[in-house]
Every structure is written in structure tokens, then in C-alpha cells.
């Protein structure tokens, strides 16, 4: 008797050509259901990040405006975070290698690169944990000022994404070690990869907006509508 997963796939169809089961009926778009689902989910996730980035952009100057230290300029450590951003970017490379390996049927390669990706992700998370505790010791908490609140919520939300990604990668690694990830299941790896690359790209946006671009007094101290509209539009636009 077939497994439920098989049934669902067969029923849902679209496993299509890379699977070698040509008898499954094709999907209308030719794309696999799960791949399309991942893309649609990531579009939605853009809006989650967009809303948080907009919030950050609106509030990040408030600490200076009200004189509530610590300010972003004092506390953000660009070289340190550049390093962890680099680590995360490298993990996208290892992720690509993991997918390439399983597509060629190279199970050992898959395991090595999955482990490497998960490890790099974990290093990034460790770096974030260290950064957060460091900031906390320097007096920045969720409650200190608007910069702290919006910074921790935004980067924490991203960190939660990375955490889920690492757990997902480790699960795949575990399944692969038990022989559960076949060459024709490369889509399972590809989906995790899509998610992982997305989380990386979002980090580039966050890194640029939060760390690299300094807070510009002239344009942002004005209050009223345009702060919001500009902040919101920039937040949403930045993500695309």
C-alpha cells in the first residue's frame, strides 16, 4: 500500500519530469505544487519583514530625538556584524552545493554540505546571541528606547527564521543519514534551499538598512505623515 505522502503527491500531481514518474498527471503551470507553495509563502513573508522594517525605519531615529541612549551609531558594531553576515552568505553557497550533490545522486556530498550549511547558520545565530547579550550589557534592551525595541524585534524575527532553517536542515541531514532522501527527492532539499536563500537575502536588506546606512538627521526628524509614508514605502520597497 502506498504511503500517504506518495498518495498526496500522486493525487496532487506535478511531481513531474524530474521524478521519472511520467504517469503522474502534469500540473497546469508545469511547476510542482510544493515549489509554488514555497514561492507564495515567501511573497507573504516579504510583507512580514516589510512591516517590521518599516517600523524600524520609522522609529530608529527616536532614540536620538529624545536623547535616550544608547543610540544606534554608538552601539552597532559594523565589522563584527559584517563577519557574521559573511558567514550567512557563505551558507547560501554550501546550500547550493548540497542541492547540486543530491541532484547528482551524491549522498555523501549532500550530507557534508547540509551539515556545513547548518553549521554556518548556527555560527550566525551564535553571533547574534553574543551581539544581543553584548548590547544588553551596554544598556540596550527592548524597553530602553524605540531603537532597542524595533531593533530587537526585527533582528529577532530574522533570527527565528534562521533557527527554523537550521532545524529544517538538520532534519534533512538526519533523514538522509537514515537513507530517507533519495535522488528523486531532491525537491525536498530544493525547498529548504529556497527558504534558506530567502532568509539570507533578507539579512542583506536588514544589514544594509540597520547597520550600514547611518541615521540621517535632516530627513528624518520631521514628524507627521511623511515620516510614516516614506518609512513604510521604503520598508516595503526595500524588500523587493
Amino acid at each position: 500500500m502506498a504511503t500517504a505522502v506518495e498518495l498526496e503527491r500522486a493525487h496532487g500531481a506535478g511531481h513531474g519530469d524530474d521524478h521519472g514518474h511520467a504517469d503522474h498527471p502534469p500540473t497546469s503551470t508545469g511547476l510542482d505544487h510544493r515549489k509554488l507553495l514555497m514561492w507564495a509563502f515567501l511573497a507573504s513573508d516579504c510583507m512580514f519583514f516589510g512591516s517590521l522594517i518599516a517600523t524600524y525605519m520609522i522609529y530608529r531615529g527616536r532614540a536620538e530625538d529624545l536623547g535616550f541612549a544608547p543610540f544606534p551609531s554608538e552601539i552597532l558594531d559594523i565589522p563584527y556584524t559584517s563577519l557574521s553576515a559573511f558567514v550567512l552568505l557563505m551558507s547560501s553557497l554550501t546550500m547550493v552545493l548540497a542541492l547540486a550533490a543530491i541532484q547528482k545522486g551524491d549522498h555523501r556530498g549532500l550530507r557534508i554540505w547540509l551539515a556545513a550549511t547548518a553549521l554556518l547558520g548556527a555560527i550566525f545565530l551564535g553571533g547574534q546571541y553574543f551581539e544581543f547579550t553584548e548590547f544588553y550589557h551596554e544598556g540596550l534592551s527592548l524597553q530602553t528606547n524605540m531603537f532597542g525595541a524595533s531593533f530587537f524585534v526585527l533582528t529577532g524575527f530574522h533570527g527565528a527564521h534562521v533557527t527554523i532553517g537550521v532545524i529544517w536542515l538538520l532534519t534533512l541531514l538526519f533523514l538522509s543519514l537514515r537513507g530517507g532522501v533519495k535522488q528523486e527527492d531532491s525537491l525536498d532539499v530544493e525547498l529548504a534551499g529556497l527558504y534558506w536563500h530567502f532568509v539570507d537575502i533578507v539579512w542583506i536588506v536588514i544589514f544594509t538598512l540597520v547597520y550600514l546606512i547611518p541615521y540621517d538627521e535632516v530627513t528624518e526628524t520631521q514628524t507627521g505623515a511623511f515620516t510614516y509614508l516614506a518609512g513604510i514605502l521604503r520598508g516595503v520597497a526595500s524588500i523587493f
Partner: protein
Amino acid sequence: MASVAQPAGHAGPATQTVARPATKKNIGFWSWITTVDHKRIGLLYGITAFAYLLIGGIEALVIRSQLIAPNNDLVSLEKYNQFFTMHGTTMIFLAVMPLSSAFFNFIIPLQIGARDVAFPRLNAFSYWVFFFGGLILSLSWLANAAPNQGWYGYAPLTEKGFNIGRNVDFWALGLQVLGIASIAASLNFIITILNMRAPGMTLMRMPLFTWTTLITSILIVMAFPAITIALALLSFDRFAGTSFYIPYIYDEATRQVVARGGDPLLWQHLFWIFGHPEVYILILPAFGIVSEIIPVFSRKPLFGYAVMVYATATIAFLGFGVWVHHMFTTGLGPTPNAVFAASTMLIAVPTGVKILNWTSTMWGGQLNFTTPMLFSTALVSQFVIGGISGVMHGSPPIDSQHNDSYFVVAHFHYVLFGGSIFALLAGTYYWFPKFSGRMLDERLGKWHFWVTFAAFNITFFPMHFLGLEGMPRRYGTYGEGSGLQLWHVVSSVGSYLLGFSFLIFMYNVAVSLQRGKKAGNDPWDGATLEWTIPSPPPVYNFATVPVVRHRDPLWEEKYAKYEGEGHAEEETLETTIAGIKIGEGQVPDEDALEQAERRAAADDEHNIHLPNPSYWPLVTALGVFLAAFGLIFSYPRIPIGALDLPLYTAAGLLVLVAGVYGWSLEPAS
């Protein structure tokens, strides 16, 4: 190429018999709990949402009873706040949205010729999360802490400093949970519609209801994140001492007012960036329903189909660019007000196009005013009234008068009740035969319609006058000599009549389920694929996957008149219905035929695959529920490492993780 006039698996009553898939335990309580069948999930949505419609209705009757006399004290003003908040929240999130979902679930796979949705277990998960979200909101009544801040939850009224109880927490977490349900369901429908259309059903041959479902789902997926984040920030304010929406606090120690830097306006922005698309989430499915019904009972295809599709897409797109019209009176300044006034007026254009198309569809048609048609035409007329008052308060100076007055209450009831609810009732009468196998009684249906129509206008039209005479929104009382009582009494009496109209409806359903006329496959002489299969449909829906060659496939099937001798592919086929030409038939392309052949081959080989029932969606949803519940009742707590989590939240997260793993690894052999 072979003859194309009679392709192998053509749309139409399937005659071919197919081995029925083994369905053990397919009746009884547990089979409903573990079901992944889109039709059952649709019914579950429908029944649950109807129950909430009644609850929301009773809340409305309490509101109207309070306002029937000046200085009335039927309920306290604090309770009154809870009643109008829960009424709005219930109607929007627990009645109208899930009623639309019920139709999406039951009808969409049938309309596109599919055997289920793309992710059946995700579908079950969506329902259960919705169920638990509703439960959280309902439990607030039992905890004597129903939300009391209005359905829009304006800060800082929602902040701890003003709202110390759990009321807001029930609301915020209830909505978070409902948001998960909506996003999950919408992702599923986007993929289903894009990927599971029958061979030959190109995008521009999809029924209009399928189109509006697709666009509504995209709106949900793109708009809900804004409110999710807004609510999360609110919860941070309430649980973690941030001040995202708090500009100042009073510091007990120094006895001074201290600036915090937060801003209540951020809430309004995030809320309305979600909120305006939300009103289209509420109305577009309704537009889709009447776009199915009006052609069938005018015996003409929909006028301007393509324009209808583009208008829907335009409305959805513009819907993201008008949110500030809810904030004209917050002092954003003349420039934003002018820009958003313009975009608001602009959005009335595609909306007007739709009205025009429906009337043109009826123009010259053979009109048959059955109950579904009555409700549909009522939508067209009543929505126009609501649309016009909408455009009126799209103008900032006029809105300064309307804002927070009963005039706005009149507006959104004309669009929501006169629009959404009328269409949902129309859809119920139209598709009830497909759900149940029996027709709803027409004579009772007409009574139901006319009572509803009259009562609706008696209840809501006077609210325009009340608003212009100065009755504010959300006030549980008014003064003796204010001159407002007359219209309040009229409105309240109308609301009792409206309540009565629902009794007629329920009586009709009860009677018709027992004794209603048997429906057969196609009781209305319909045009779309759902009418090609038995009522109620078998579990696998289509014995043979249909091939679609026309926008109105079943009409083409029934009325196509082939000209000329042979069925050569150059020949156009002309379809006429009741003597009216409904268009040239499109010859199926080779791709479609090939797809059809491959599907037929797959069918033969494995018979029909149906997904197995599963407990995991329910388990996972239960995890979500417990996690949210724990945040509301933050005690008892359990320390985990550096974290100090509420016990139920920790337990919920464990159940959630177990559910996700059980689900993705589920072996069913």
C-alpha cells in the same frame, strides 16, 4: 490530428465507471475530525461560520435594544463596548470570511475540474486553526473579559495603561491565530487554482468565482502580515514593556510624564494597510458569487468577462493604496489626504465597471427571478448605495463630518450586509442543491428574501439620517431631547425583523433537507463544471477528468451547434442558448488534449488517488491554540533555560513541533 469535436474526456455527466477508492470509516464523528476532503471541510467551515453569524447577530440585537430608548441601561456601557467590539470582530473574521471559505472549499475544486485541493491536509489544518481562533475569541465571554476596544483596536486604548484586563489579549491572540488559518488556506487556494485546473481551462476560461477566489487569496496572503506584525508589536507592548504605540507614560516614581517615543498612528497605518484590503477580502468573493448566478438566471454569458477579471485585479491592486482614507481626521496634512482621496475615488471606477457588467448581463436576457437571482440583484442595488456613501467619505472635508458617526455605520453595512451577506445567501440558495442533493424551497426562499430585503433597509437606511443628525458611532446611549429616538426605534424594529428573517431561512434549510425536491446534477441549467457531476458529489468528484474548451463548458456541451458536416478543426462551433448566441467555441489546443490523455492514462493505472484522513492537522492546530492560550493566561509559568515561558505556551510549542514532524513524516501504510 484526430477529430476534436468529441475529445475523449469531455465535460459532461461522466458515464465511465471507475473503481471507487477504498474509503473505510467514511462516516461518523472521527471521520469528520480527520477528514481532508475539501467538500467536508467546506461544510465544516459553513456550519461553524453560520453559528458565528447567529452569535454576531444576537450581539447586534443587544446593541439595537440598548439604543431603542434614550438613556437606556439594558447593558452597562462597559458591556456595550464589548458587544460592539465582538459584533464587528465576529462578523468580519468569524462569519463573513469563513463563509466565503466554505464556498471556496466546496466549489473551487469542482469548478476547475479537480479532485481535491493541492494540499488537503493543510486545508484541514486551516479549518482547525480557524476553529480554535474562534474558540479563543468566544472564551473571552466566559472569562468575563470580552474585547472592548473596537474591531480596529486603536492604540493607545489597547495598551495596558488604559486596558488592564485580558480583554485585548483575547482579541490580539485570537486574531493572530485566525490570521494563521487565513494565510494557510489562501496559500492552498492559490496553488490549487494555478496548478489543478482541468486540461484546457486556461486562466481566461476560469469561472469568475474562481478568479475572485484567486485574487482574494492573494490579497489575504499579502495583507494579513501587516496586521500580524501590528498585533505582535501590541503584544510586545502589553507583555514585554515596549512602547511601540505609547508616546508618553506617567512615571509613578518621579510623578512625571515621560516621553517614550512610540506612536499610536503607527498602529493605524499598519492596521489599515491590512484593513482596506480586508474589505475587498470580504466583498470580492461575493462579487464572484453573483457573477456566477446572474448569467445563469439571465441565460446569457457574463457581459465583459475579461473586463470583469481586470476590474477585480485592479481593485485588489489599488486596494493597497487607499488606506489613509480611514485616517483623514488624524491630521496627516493636506497632501496625503489629497493623494489618498484621489486613489479612493479611483477605486470606485473598476467597482462601477462591475455594476455595469452585471446590469448589461441582465439586459436583454431571459430573466428568471429565483431566490438566488433575487439576492444577487439585491446585491447589485444595495452595494451601489454603500459604494456611493463610500465615495462620499472618500472626500476629506466630507469625511470630517462623517467620520465616527452613524453615517459610516450605514455605509459599511450597505457594503457588508447588502453586499457580502446578500451574496453569501444567494450562493447558499444556488449551491445548496450541490451541497445536499436537495433544493431549498423556493416559496419560503422568496419570503426569506423579501423579509430580509425590507428589514435590511429599515434597519440600516435610517442610520444615514442618524449620522447626519449627529449620532456618534460606538456610543451606548443618547440624550432624551436629542431628537434621535425616532430613527433609532425604526432601526431597532428593523433589526428584530432581520433576526426573524434568519429564522425563516433556518426553517427553510431544515425542511428542505428532509423534503426538498431532489436536485439532480444540474437543477439550474448551469454553465460550469460543478453541475456536470452528481449532487452531492462523490468523494472523488469527477470520475473522468473533464476537458474544457469553453468559458462556459457545460453550456457549450449542452447547446453547441456544430455547423457543417464533419467536425474538422477549422470549423467554428457556435453555441447558442435559448436562441442567443453565446460565442464561438474555442477549439481545444493540442496541449490540452495531450494533458487529458496523460491524465486519463494515470487514472487507468492507479484508479483514483485520494489522500488519507489524518490526525496531524488537528494536532498541529491544537499546538497553535495552546501556545496562544498560554500567552493570554500567562500563569502557571515554567522556566526553560534563560526563558520563563507560560506553561501552556511551552506545551503548545511541543505539540506544534510534534504535529509538524508527525505530519511531514506521516507513514500511512
